[in-house]
């Protein structure tokens, strides 16, 4: 197999230019899909037979929760690649993931709390799903704090990458928490083996929103990646060329 493409991705100028070119191809479809899903979820989908109109919170709660896990997995993969093959661009990608993931984990916890109060009668419970998701937020914040605390950028990259890789054990724990332990939280509706437990009219806006958020993450990551690459490349000639400085 030819691995040149992989090595080219590791080259900062190539990664920078590729990220720049690709961003609009993720950003615009993300915007269109999110707006479409918003209309589908708020207007077209019928009310739920148990949760009434309140179930519409799923269209923001499930995608933000999906982002919290997907962004962490991406960050841990990038960190692992960076540690194994010593690729600077992969460290830059991992660092770019953390603030995005932390903010969406925060949104998942807040929307979940708003969902919990009318449906379960409580804003918060020290339940396995909720507690493990809160730990995920602390993992993101710990990762960012660790990076900020270490002055030498290369040591900050390596040390924080180890934390990101170790912390990935929390991802399956969060996903399976509702099956392994008694939880207030419902079992997976969509992310399960076999058919989703949802009628098509309710399901399609959710799937479109999940794809829209994933594309949004890609666009955000590409923009942040460029900033991280610039910060790591001190005086490379290609930056002079790129910025016209």
């Amino acid at each position, binding site marked *: 197999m030819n691995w040149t493409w992989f090595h080219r991705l590791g080259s900062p100028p190539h990664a920078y230019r590729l990220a720049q070119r690709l961003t609009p191809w993720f950003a615009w479809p993300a915007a269109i899909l*999110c707006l479409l899903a918003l209309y589908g979820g*708020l*207007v077209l989908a019928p*009310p739920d037979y148990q949760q*009434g*109109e*309140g179930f*519409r*919170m799923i269209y*923001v*709660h499930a*995608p*933000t929760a999906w982002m919290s896990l997907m962004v962490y997995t991406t960050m841990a993969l990038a960190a692992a690649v960076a540690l194994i093959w010593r690729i600077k661009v992969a460290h830059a990608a991992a660092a770019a993931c953390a*603030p*995005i993931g932390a*903010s*969406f984990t*925060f*949104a998942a916890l*807040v*929307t979940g709390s*708003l*969902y919990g*109060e*009318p449906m379960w009668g409580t804003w918060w419970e020290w339940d396995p799903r909720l507690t493990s998701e809160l730990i995920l937020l602390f993992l993101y914040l710990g990762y960012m704090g660790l990076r900020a605390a270490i002055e030498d950028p290369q040591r900050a990259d390596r040390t924080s990458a180890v934390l990101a890789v170790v912390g990935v054990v929390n991802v399956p724990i969060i996903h399976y928490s509702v099956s392994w332990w008694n939880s207030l939280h419902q079992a997976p509706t969509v992310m399960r083996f076999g058919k989703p437990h949802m009628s098509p009219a309710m399901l399609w806006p959710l799937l479109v929103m999940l794809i829209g958020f994933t594309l*949004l993450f890609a666009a*955000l990551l590409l*923009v*942040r990646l*460029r*900033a*991280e690459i*610039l*910060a790591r*490349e*001190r*005086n490379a000639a290609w*930056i*002079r060329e790129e*910025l016209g*400085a």
Partner: protein
Amino acid sequence: MREFLDMGGYAAFVWPAYAVTLAVVVANIVWARRLLRQAQAAARRRMAAAGAQP
């Protein structure tokens, strides 16, 4: 319209949930773009400083 805004009595939960999510999405977009602009400005300054001292 009124019925839509009322969300079957769940308005106090549905709309804040959407508002928080929208705020996080918008903040992420603004934040990422600002970070890139700042990194570009910092790189330009570095280049100018390096260029001044041969």
